[in-house]
């Protein structure tokens, strides 16, 4: 006869062992809340470092997880991802932080602005075409250990003063093999002046600069260093009676270029047969300005064109972008 319950002995033994009562609700909820606070702290760190990040690494990873637009090339490959994180959204995150964190963050931002001003003065004091490395003594060694320095040795920033060209004829010998820029846009905007920037040079001795800062008790140490000859980007302003518009051409990141924007509006548009992203920025009482960015099909060059809405409407800007894209 078939056993009606063949696993009875096991069942009896399992049942025989009483299972204690458990209540882990508080611990689990506390762990979830702690994780959420940790995420907020990371977010705070990201915001705090935003200025430095955009200065050093072109604002890339700090934008992870925000609203995004992907641009594809003619082969359907994603070549650029633009993430959006508006000033309002950033502000909201800041407002949710505890009061003491907000105070600390405001102080950090003020400090960054002060340093940014010093950096601008250093850059302006350089002769055109020259470069300097700046070593900043970290205020807090412990916190400093947590910062990932993407491009340079820790606490080093590199600045260059570019060579400025006042006509395409002068600029062409420098960048003409890579791309061509028009001498005018839309018939009314004329080439005004263009700057060529090179990748940051790494010909500095970070240890020596650190030593000098320590020895002379300086806040920062500046050293002129040889410039790099690797093209990074060119920026040109075109002028008309209405005002100026700015075009930029830069080496695109390999593969999918990740970039971020704090624009209020971000939309995908077409520049000729190129997918492009158009962003609209507005702050305070200033006029809104539009910025269109695309990777030119068949190249590894990232183009952009931007102008105040008073100077060129969105439609006009896209027409000018098409002309810029088609210039050979």
């Amino acid at each position: 006869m078939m056993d009606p319950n063949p696993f009875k002995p096991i069942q009896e033994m399992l049942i025989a062992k009483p299972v204690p009562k458990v209540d882990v609700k508080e611990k689990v909820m506390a762990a979830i809340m702690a994780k959420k606070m940790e995420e907020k702290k990371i977010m705070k760190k990201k915001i705090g470092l935003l200025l430095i990040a955009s200065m050093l690494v072109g604002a890339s990873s700090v934008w992870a997880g925000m609203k995004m637009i992907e641009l594809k090339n003619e082969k359907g490959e994603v070549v650029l991802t633009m993430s959006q994180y508006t000033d309002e959204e950033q502000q909201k995150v800041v407002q949710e932080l505890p009061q003491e964190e907000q105070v600390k963050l405001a102080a950090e931002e003020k400090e960054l602005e002060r340093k940014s001003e010093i950096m601008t003065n250093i850059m302006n004091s350089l002769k055109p075409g020259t470069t300097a490395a700046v070593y900043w003594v970290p205020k807090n060694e412990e916190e400093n250990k947590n910062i990932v320095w993407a491009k340079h040795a820790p606490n080093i920033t590199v600045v260059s003063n570019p060579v400025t060209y006042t006509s395409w004829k002068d600029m062409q010998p420098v960048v003409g093999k890579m791309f061509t820029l028009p001498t005018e846009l839309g018939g009314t905007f004329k080439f005004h002046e263009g700057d060529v920037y090179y990748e940051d040079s790494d010909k500095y001795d970070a240890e020596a600069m650190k030593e000098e800062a320590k020895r002379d008790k300086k806040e920062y140490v500046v050293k002129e260093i040889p410039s790099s000859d690797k093209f990074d980007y060119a920026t040109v302003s075109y002028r008309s009676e209405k005002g100026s518009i700015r075009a930029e051409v830069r080496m695109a990141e390999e593969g999918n270029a990740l970039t971020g924007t704090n624009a209020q509006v971000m939309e995908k548009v077409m520049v000729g047969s190129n997918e492009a992203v158009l962003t609209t920025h507005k702050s305070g009482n200033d006029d809104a300005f539009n910025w269109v960015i695309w990777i030119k099909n068949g190249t590894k060059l990232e183009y952009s064109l931007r102008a105040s809405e008073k100077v060129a409407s969105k439609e006009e800007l896209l027409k000018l972008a098409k002309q810029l894209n088609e210039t050979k």
Partner: protein
Amino acid sequence: MNKIEIEQLLEEIKAGALEQYEVIIDHYQQPIFTYCYHMLGHRQDAEDAVQEVLFRAYECLDQYSYSLSFSAWIYRIAFNHCANVLKRRKLSRFLPFLFNRDEDGRNYVEEQIDRNYLGEPFDRIWKRLTAEERTLMILRVLEEKEYDEIAALLDKKPAALRKQFERALKKCKRYMPAMGGMADDGPKSV
């Protein structure tokens, strides 16, 4: 709580109502603890496990797609967690130098666990079952779940599980005289 009520709660939690997760914890903590307790045979380990499972379930809630019942999904997390704990314990037997032991090299913690849990002779059987076999035993024998439900959480076919269960019973028989002959008869009613 029925399926619709649970899904409604999950939607609210996903939309930001964190406090609703307390209802989910209240509903699942004891069954998951029971499962982990039988799987691991150790109260503290089981308590750590249930915390970890409920925490991880919340963290991964966005990945939960409703194609599986939430109950099966959370048991799957529990199974994976317990399987990892058991794997680590097994490893500690073979790689003693990697784990904490007493001066004479014996892992007293591991030796205590199963003995205190069920005692002889069940200890001999339980130690020899894999994580999947233990899960089958707990869910089928103790919780009397249907094969379809167990299949969903182990991601296997019900028929394959039925076979596996039969094999596990045979394995038990080998180490437990009280079950003599049962598995050989073919437990068709299982």
